[in-house]
């Protein structure tokens, strides 16, 4: 396994991504999206796809760049730094990883950036795939899907939906389907999301699904979903890690410039120690994030501990970073004109998506026999 520091190729990828995002997707772009009422800029996504980002986890035989999970994490970290909004996690990471493991023939469309995917798994306010209750009632040669999915990231804008539903009972009762978002009986309602991104509630009213729509095996839904979930959790952790570094950089800039009591406020030890502590947390989290990417690339079957460790850490660190960011900015941090609030809102959404701190800390604790 490579070391945890970036390789030369990874440094180049990071530099290129940073340059591109600083120029094309700064925080002001997210603000413009929000004010225009759009979740992301399709033109930006096309450019990302042209650079190979949409196919970062897709094999070259399907037109992908096949750069691996650490590379996907580096892209996500850089996107987190500027809060770049795109369907990257939903399509290029989660759907691509799940469909690749299942040998789907739709990978080419994802790699092109042409097919946008959403993962519909949650049914309540907390992420709990194994408690899925949505019905997949066998009928003829296929199924009828009935029920509701909530907090479906990119759900309103997606072309296709990966949806987990109950096709039977017990451990082998869940099946993962890949269906067209325009299919009869499926209605979608976008939320007024705090982070100005797209998440939606999906209502399934006896939506028809055939055997061809099944990802993996009937009854093997959790297994089919696992590669997608793990990849998504790791990349989301990376995004939150980048977000933490992003707001921290903004805050440090302010500490070096703002004057009160005839002094630069960054010279006050009370603020210096808070900033230094935050630096420590960010560094420790960055290690867990890099490690998760490495393990996914080299031992994907044993990656859950590493991935949950990264997601748990990144969730906590992002929370600290945005809270410290606003507090150290003082009143201006509370204004909509300033960027700090955008980081805070995205950090909160990222905290819940794909499992919160408690969900992942429990996985770590169980693996460590606590």
């Amino acid at each position, binding site marked *: 396994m490579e070391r945890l520091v970036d390789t030369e190729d990874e440094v180049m990828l990071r530099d290129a991504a940073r340059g591109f995002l600083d120029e094309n997707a700064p925080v002001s772009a997210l603000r413009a999206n929000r004010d225009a009422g759009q979740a992301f800029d399709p033109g930006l996504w096309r450019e990302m796809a042209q650079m190979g980002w949409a196919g970062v986890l897709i094999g070259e035989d399907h037109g992908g760049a096949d750069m691996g999970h650490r590379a996907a994490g580096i892209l996500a970290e850089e996107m987190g730094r500027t809060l770049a909004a795109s369907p990257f996690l939903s399509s290029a990471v989660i759907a691509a990883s799940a469909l690749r493991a299942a040998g789907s023939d739709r990978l080419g469309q994802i790699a092109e950036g042409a097919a946008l995917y959403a993962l519909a798994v949650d049914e309540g306010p907390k992420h709990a795939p194994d408690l899925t209750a949505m019905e997949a009632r066998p009928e003829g040669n296929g199924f009828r899907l009935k029920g509701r999915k909530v907090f479906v990231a990119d759900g309103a804008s997606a072309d296709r939906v990966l949806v987990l539903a109950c096709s039977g009972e017990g451990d082998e009762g869940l099946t993962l389907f890949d269906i067209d978002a325009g299919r009869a009986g499926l209605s979608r309602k976008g939320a007024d999301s705090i982070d100005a991104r797209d998440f939606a509630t999906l209502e399934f009213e006896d939506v028809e699904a055939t055997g061809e729509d099944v990802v993996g095996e009937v009854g093997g839904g959790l297994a089919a979903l696992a590669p997608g979930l793990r990849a998504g959790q790791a990349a989301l952790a990376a995004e939150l890690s980048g977000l933490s570094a992003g707001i921290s950089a903004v805050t440090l800039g302010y500490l070096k410039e703002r004057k009160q009591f005839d002094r630069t406020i960054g010279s006050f030890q009370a603020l210096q120690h808070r900033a230094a502590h935050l630096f420590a947390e960010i*560094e420790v989290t960055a290690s867990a994030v890099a490690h998760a990417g490495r393990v996914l690339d080299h031992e994907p079957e044993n990656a859950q501990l590493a991935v949950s460790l990264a997601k748990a850490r990144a969730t906590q660190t992002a929370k600290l970073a945005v809270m410290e960011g606003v507090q150290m900015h003082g009143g201006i941090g509370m204004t909509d004109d300033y960027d700090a609030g955008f980081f805070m809102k995205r950090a909160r959404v990222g905290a819940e998506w794909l499992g919160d701190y408690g969900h992942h800390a429990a996985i770590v604790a169980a693996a460590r026999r*606590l």
Partner: protein
Amino acid sequence: MPDTLEDFRAEIAEWIAENLPGELRGQPRNEDTICWGGRNWKFRSEAQKDWLERCHARGLTCPRWPVDYGGGGMSRDEEKTLRAEMARAGAPSPLDSFGIWMLGPALLKFGTDEQKAEHLPEITAGRIRWCQGYSEPGAGSDLANVQTRAEDMGDHWLVNGQKIWTSYADKADKIFALVRTDRDAPKHLGISFMLIDMETPGVTTRPIRLISGASPFCETFFDNVKVPKEGAIVGEMNRGWDVAKYLLTHEREMIGGGSGGLTTGATLSEMIGDMDMVAGADPVIRAQAMELEVDSLAFGLTMERYKDMAESGAGVGHASAMLKYYGTELNKRRQEIIMSARGSEALDWGEGLAAPWLRSKANSIEGGTSEVMLDIISKRVLELPSK
């Protein structure tokens, strides 16, 4: 070179299997089992002596040091493999010493060939036990304020003053100390890094009893101590602060590194015992333990990443203060949680939990306090202004 590393692993595993005395296998690591070496060292057993000698002959007491000085000449990957195999076999560290951790690295970087040849082989063989003389009653966090002075008397230095918190000074053969050799220079520029034999007339020590009941630290007094000039100063005269800073970086990594979840011997789960029995009724302790485990594992990975950074030449610099800060604060949390989870049974000294709990409180003081570490991070890493 994974193939050759695998060969190395197999070779080391076989060597350990052949050479590790059975009675040492899996023994707990504590003051009664550690091998410190030195002129007056009394081996705890024949097995301990054999293990040290065999490891030394194979270069395993200082795996990364040059072979010429009794080291193993290994790469970092080889050392990592060695440590993993040692841990897997339940093998104790053959030799612990401040010579290995601190003086050796300083000599390798700043020492003359003569100094290296004189001291390093004694360290790798465990024949000389060193202690560190840095802190003074008036020089704690403000370490550069050292007042112990060395006067140039022609063929020797005349040393007078007092050190405090000198670890195991009462058992050490020699001391590496910061002494003031120029009283007129600015405080950082008048200090030299001096090597002094503890048997020299005028050197006395007095152990300090700590809250943990142990006395690992001493006061060390220098009363008209004559130190022959030949080879006494490491690095340039009056530039001892450079050597000290370099060494402090090592010390910080080491103190911080002792607490990573992946690197310590016993897991948190083993230390706590059956969670359902001990803390099952207490969701707060369980939650604290879970959070600690998350942070410890991530910190262990951070130690790895920083070593990788140092190795790759990118350098870690002042960010090592972060490792010291984070690692020691983690260890204090860990000890608190263990005490709390084990409840009243931990309150008997005989259970062996109270002493490490109390000892851990010094982690965030020794080698630079947590607050000094945060100062270093904010000024040197984050470059926050001083006014």
